[in-house]
């Protein structure tokens, strides 16, 4: 097995990511951020970075439990809120979700999970307007590459400090920033139904997926080179297939080109245009 280290220099990551949040938020004319806190490690880290970048009083932490959410999720979120001293709000989504969920009683877990993720997006964007802050994304590189997210749900945000860090690296940086131990130590879960864990749902472990993605994406290995490096052929096939199948979640919706100048093809400006 090839020795693959995903270790990062956490001081440097912290410096770049806090500067990123501060600079890219303030250049829009705002100085505040809104972060949805799930009780998990990704949103905890995003909230820590935002609090450090903007000052705790400029970051609104929003907890959005559903009735089946684990009680410890809210407890862990509160632990972080207390530690950082950020203002917070709890907006349960149960009352919003139930009418739609009840209308389709045989709804799959996937559909139910997507509805919850999109309701949370609605709450966050409403708080974005109310609080005057940009919504900070919390998806990591592993999730983005594997497509483990809800389009227009948790994938909807203004900017994301974690999107180029694999889950393993998120854990390393979260530890360095002092994220409370109960959050660091528990199994990653989208908490969409009781007992759910990311790894069981996807049928893989983050540790192995991160190493494989690092070879495929960052080091440009061919799939057969990954197998030669010690990865199971079936696992490589699964991950390669997920990478391709979920690319639609990583790009803007398609625009049908008709004119000589079209958004997405030959109308090209950064978002920071003029700032």
């Amino acid at each position, binding site marked *: 097995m090839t020795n693959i*280290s995903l*270790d*990062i*220099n956490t*001081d*440097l*990551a912290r*410096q*770049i990511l806090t*500067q*990123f949040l501060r*600079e*890219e938020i303030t250049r829009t004319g705002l100085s505040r951020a809104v972060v949805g806190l799930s009780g998990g490690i990704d949103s905890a880290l995003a909230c820590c970075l935002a609090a450090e970048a903007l000052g705790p009083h400029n970051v609104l932490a929003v907890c959005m439990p559903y009735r089946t959410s684990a009680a410890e999720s809210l407890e862990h979120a509160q632990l972080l809120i207390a530690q950082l001293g950020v203002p917070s709000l709890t907006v349960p989504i149960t009352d919003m979700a139930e009418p739609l969920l009840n209308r389709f009683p045989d709804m799959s877990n996937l559909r139910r999970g997507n509805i919850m993720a999109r309701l949370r997006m609605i709450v966050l964007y409403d708080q974005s307007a109310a609080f005057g802050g940009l919504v900070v994304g919390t998806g990591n590189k592993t999730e983005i590459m594997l497509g483990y997210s809800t389009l227009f749900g948790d994938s909807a945000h203004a*900017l994301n400090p974690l999107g*180029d860090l694999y889950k393993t690296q998120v854990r390393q940086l979260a530890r360095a920033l002092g994220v409370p131990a109960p959050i660091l130590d528990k199994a990653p879960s989208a908490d969409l139904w009781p007992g759910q864990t990311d790894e069981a749902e996807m049928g893989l472990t983050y540790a192995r997926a991160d190493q494989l993605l690092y070879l495929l994406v960052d080091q440009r290995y061919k799939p057969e080179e990954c197998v030669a490096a010690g990865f199971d052929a079936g696992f490589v096939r699964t991950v390669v297939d997920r990478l391709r199948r979920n690319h639609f979640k990583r790009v803007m919706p398609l625009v049908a080109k008709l004119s000589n100048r079209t958004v997405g093809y*030959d*109308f*090209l*400006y*950064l*978002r*920071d*245009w*003029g*700032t």
Partner: protein
Amino acid sequence: MPALTLGLAQIKTKLGAVQANLEKHLALIDDAAKAGVQLLVFPELSLTGYVLQDLVPTVACAPTPDDPVFSQLLAVSRARNLDLVVGFVDEDQRNRFYIASAYLSQGRVVHVHHKVYLPTYGLFDEGRFFAWGDAVRAFDTRFGRLGMLICEDFWHASAPYLLWLDGADVMLFASASPGRGLNSAPTLESARWVEHVLKAYASLFTTFVAHTNKVGFEDGLNFWGGAVAFDPNGDQLVQGPYHEEALVVTTLDLNQLHRTRARLPLLRDERHALVAREIARITAGSAGARDKG
């Protein structure tokens, strides 16, 4: 000319906002003059920002006295007795756009360099928006003979090599280098790569090499600053901070050229006629290979 006090500006820029960037240049020039700087170097595209894409035609200017931007820079170079290297988009007479650096001294444009290597791979897309420069020339200044290169230019050893043969004893490099390659090391890979090659050029060409780089963000890209200068022994003279705006000042003891080249006569022994012959042979012989011009 025994010494040159060199200022290296590592600044943030506003994307496509030339007037705002010009004001920032003028403020920093003021600071530099007060600090005794004789030559102040700004990063690549310092007047415009880097990832310009479709903004390119709207931010171009001409390095001439009647240009509203350059007229102010030229006036201040005279008034403050401070030479300047500024980065901008140059539009030529036939409306081709170049990534350019201009050397200004005492109210005159002494030299303009057009970037000759436009990275168009990975995260870079310069070849889509810009024309390729076609000259690498040293030029005379009141501080001696100098040369300028822009970012990707110095990733091709031939460019500093040509400046060396053309008489440049101080090489001024300007970049807008996006930071990348985070691992367990305390600096980004992109910073380490650049510092390796700068040190190597200073050592191999027994010349001064100074480099400055933009800071701040453009969308998700970070620019890492870290201005440096090396002397003809390859020893580092100064190191600017990473990821922060700074005016980095160092003094080049130009007599070091004499001492280093007395010890190590690499320039004296360089066989450029041999190089020219072999390049002519290789070029003539590679019928199948595409000549990149």
